[in-house]
């Protein structure tokens, strides 16, 4: 139920956080106050989108190879 949406959401948020965090750290380290944070915020957003697309593709591949047709059961606990 929550598995798919949750995975995608976390992918996006975490990439943003990691990007912003790295930017903030580099800023503090090199004293280039707001610039790297801003740059890495957007890089993080881009990385997040990349992750989301990859995750979605992976899920699609898994659904396609699943023994049950997707219209019948899109259940995540199909893990035997």
């Amino acid at each position: 139920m929550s598995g798919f949406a949750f995975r995608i959401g976390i992918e996006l948020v975490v990439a943003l956080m990691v990007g912003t965090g790295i930017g903030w750290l580099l800023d503090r380290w090199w004293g280039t106050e707001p610039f790297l944070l801003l740059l890495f915020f957007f890089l993080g957003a881009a990385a997040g989108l990349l992750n989301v697309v990859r995750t979605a593709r992976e899920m699609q591949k898994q659904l396609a190879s699943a023994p049950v047709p997707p219209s019948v059961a899109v259940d995540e606990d199909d893990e035997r």
Partner: protein
Amino acid sequence: MAGETVENDVGEAAAEIAQHGSEAEHGAAGHSPLEQFQIKRLIPIDIAGIDISFTNSALFMLIAVALVTLFLTYAMHGRAIIPGRLQSIAELSYEFIANMIRENVGSEGRRYFPFIFTLFMFILFGNLLGMIPYSFTYTSHIIVTFALAAVVFIGVTVIGFVRHGAKFLKLFVPSGVPMFLLPLLVMIEILSYLTRPISLSVRLFANMMAGHTMLKVFGGFVVALGVLAGWAPLAFVVALTGLEIGIAFLQAYVFTILTCIYLNDAINLHH
């Protein structure tokens, strides 16, 4: 009270409910739904100023490891050709992980089976142990899941470099991209790679913590609403418990399959 140390919306909401709820149950309802996540020192150990106490978290990790070992050795001790119930479960879990590795990594991944199987069983038993009332869910702590994810991340990176040397860096260079875009895309790819341990750990931790908090909050509703209206949240808690057991399996599965996918990237060098 212990719950006062944790400031949280959920905690406040529960405290409010406790106040408006029945006075008779005040003692029980005064607990925060986050109290279950508290680390308690069982055996304080302090070496050179570093606190390495044996905590309730460590205790449940030990219990999980002992249970997995006991379960697998006991289930397989008969080595029957026609397996019994326990042996079936043990063989099923073995084949489940073996198939997962074969499908996602290929035959090259077979040598990493022991690690991946251990990882799966450790997380699964941690999640399932947490479903027992009054137990502690060590997978609901981000430091535990992050340590697991960091081992996977560092291990996969080392495997990639050992197998491919500097060629491993090709993972960060997408093919068929104009030269002027390449620096930007390489940066994005590296960032995307660095997010892996964080997203891996946050996913497991957030799922477990959210689920367990929700269970406790609705448990609080049952007490607060009393005999008259408490049945509705009680029914919900029952349903939620079933869902949580499902999530316990699902999240162990997701963690393991992502480990396999990362391993595949490192071994076969493509996304």
